[in-house]
Structure formats: C-alpha cells, structure tokens
C-alpha cells in the first residue's frame, strides 16, 4: 500500500516528518487509526500516546499533550501542544511535573487555573507511562539525551 505522509509538529519544533504506513492517535472521541486514503478529517486530540507504524521498522511511540490533527488522503498533520518521542522523555522532569500538578490540584491556591492543572497532570501521566514502558522494553537504557525540551 502506498504510504501516507505524516508530520508531527509541536509549538517548539518539528518532531517527526516522514512517510509512514499507519498513524494511531488519541482523538477526542477515542483512539483513531489512520491509514492511507483516509477520508478528510479534522479532530481535536487529547493528551495520550501517538503511535507511528512503518514497514520494516519498529513502531515509534510518542507522547502528545493535546492538539489537533488534520487528515487528508495523502497526508496527516498533527499540530501538538507538546510532543516527544518515547526515548526523549526525561523521566525526572515528567515526575516533577506530575507532582507539581497534583499539588496544585490538591491545594487549589487562588489564581491557579484548575483546567490547566488538570491537563498538565494528564500530560505528565501520559509521558511517564510511555517513558516507563519504553525503558522497560529496553532494559532501562535509552539512546539518551537528544532533543530535550529547551
């Protein structure tokens, strides 16, 4: 089958751009699988896992923190609020972010946007989950330091 072009762009940078066979994305109405020649679609994304499948290569797992996806028959464009590949996720930072978000939600200090804190919590949980699973399958050795958030 002819591949489909996939671009994953976060606010800070282009995270991924290549021809792929399938994209699995966390749509607002549920997990979506996109194959080439998919009907035109525009959807909101929730924080979750994005999987990119390519022939002859391992699946690529990414954590996305919400955003939008536009699908055309020959291309998928994902405009993410944040996106990192599993091997780029910094576990310590994600853990710290989770604790911060939890604390905010627990204490609810004035001036804190609760909805934002909830999204932040969701995002950090997704990051942790994906990073932990990735580390587990690699015996804890990640390729490392590339592409950390600035």
């Amino acid at each position: 089958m002819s591949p489909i072009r996939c671009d994953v762009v976060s606010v800070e940078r282009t995270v991924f751009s290549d021809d792929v066979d399938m994209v699995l994305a966390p749509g607002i109405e549920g997990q979506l699988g996109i194959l080439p020649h998919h009907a035109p679609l525009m959807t909101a994304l929730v924080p979750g896992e994005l999987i990119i499948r390519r022939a002859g290569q391992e699946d690529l797992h990414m954590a996305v923190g919400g955003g939008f996806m536009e699908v055309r028959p020959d291309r998928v464009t994902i405009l993410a609020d944040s996106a990192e590949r599993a091997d780029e996720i910094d576990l310590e930072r994600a853990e710290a972010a989770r604790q911060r978000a939890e604390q905010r939600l627990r204490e609810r200090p004035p001036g804190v946007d609760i909805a934002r804190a909830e999204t932040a919590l969701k995002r950090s949980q997704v990051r942790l989950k994906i990073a932990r699973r990735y580390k587990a399958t690699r015996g804890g050795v990640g390729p490392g330091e590339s592409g950390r958030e600035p």
Partner: protein
Amino acid sequence: MATAREIRRRIRGVRNTAQIAKAMETVAASKMRRAQQQTLSSRPYAEKALAVLRSLARQAHAGGGVLLHPLLEQREIKNIGLILYTADRGLCGAFNSNMIRKAIDFVKAQEKPYSIIAVGRKGRDFLVRYGFPVVAEFTGIPDRPTMADLSPIARLAIDDFQVGRWDAVYLAYTSFVNTLVQRPTIMRLLPLEPVWESGMPTSVDYIYEPNPQAILNQVLPRFTEREIYQAMLESIASEQSARMVAMRNAREAATDLIAELTLSYNKARQEAITKELLDIAGGAEALTQAMRAQ
C-alpha cells in the same frame, strides 16, 4: 590643515563611537542568536497551522453558502485593517523605514478606507506624526515574547473582524531570511485565504470530531493568534539581525576613520616638528652670521 591637537580630539571622539558601536553589536549579536533560534524553531508549527487554516477555509468556501465560522466569512471589502510590526528602537539600519514604506504603499494601493494597529514604537511615531489612522498601539513588547504578550493584539484583530469594523486584516511584518537578508512582507490574516492545492480533498464533507463548530471554534482563533505571534518573532529576529549588521558597519567605518585620522595626525605632527627645527636652524644661522659680522 587641522592642527595636531584638533585631529587628536577628533580621533578620541571617533574611538568612543567605535566602542559604543562595538558594545551594541555584541549585545545585538547575542539577542539575535536567541531570536533567530526561537523564530526558526516555532516556524514549522506556524506554517503547518496556516496550511490547515487555508484548507479549512477552502472547505468552508466549498460549503455552498453555509458559514461554518465567522472568521471564515468572505465579505465585500469596505474597510481594511493592518497590523504593522516595527521595532521599539532605532539604530538598526533601514529596518523600520523599509517596513513602514512597504506598509504605507500597500494600504494606499488598496484605495479603501483603512486603519492600522501599530506594534512597536517606531511605526507608531511615524504614523502619528504623519496623521495615519492608528486605532491601537502596542509598545514595549519584550525581546522574548510569550503568547500572552501578543494575545491582546489577536483579540482586537479578531473582534474587529467579527463585528465588521474590518472586512480584511493584514499583517505587515519583516520576515526573517538570514542575518543579512530580511524581507518586509504583507500577509492576509483574515478572512483566511482559501488555497487550491493539488491532492486536496475535493469533497465538501470533511469529518469533524467532535463537530465542526467545536473544532473551528477552537482551531481558528488559536491558529490565528499563532500567526500573529510568529510574525512578532520574525520581526524581532529581523530587527536584531539588522541592528547587529548596522552596528558592525558603524564600527568598521569608525575603525577606518581612526586609521585615516591617525595618518593625518602623524603628518601634522611631523610637519610641526620640521617647522620647529627649521625655526631653530634658521635662528642659529642668523645668530652665527651676526656674531661673524661683529
């Protein structure tokens, strides 16, 4: 011929200027690096967002009269709005004047009533001095702006378009190409320009999840804001690049001038010494002749 002392004073003055230019060059160079990096790394998102916006606009256009969102509305253009990005400060070569000239040429060529939002003190000062219609001004935007710094501008532009005060909104900003080249650019922000690309879906029925209204309500204002933000980043990177280059030129010119002045100073000094020697020799000669005559 200036005296040696006058030239020396002049050299001191030029040397001061060179030092100031050098300091400003260094500051601009470091700001420039940061601004360029920020601009280039957020550019892909802005470009993709624009592509998505345009494809949505196309869908809306093909929708046969059903208006999916007010920001997609194509009206007869009676009033034009322009957001003009300039710097707060000068000493950056022709950066500000190039942008202002391009923007003014543009609005005049439209032959329609227009009004302008001035972002940046230089543009504001110019427009006010020459009596252009400025409806709002935003100055003092930091060198590393966040979305929050720009969202009032976006709010204003989007509201004015929605209530019909403006039927088209343009961005006039200097787009960053590289350190030596920056290009004043006019881009239509609203209503979104639909583009026809090959390979784009021809069917009207895009699937929207959760539904068209919810998606467009979220996407359109947000991506529009993003374009306004990116234009600011481009403008800042261009400004710092232009300033760095202008200051480098100033420093080099000053250094050349110092070399020239030093040469004339030495000449003047030598001439003075020669003259003195001649005086002494002449005096001594006169003295010996006088003694011999006795």
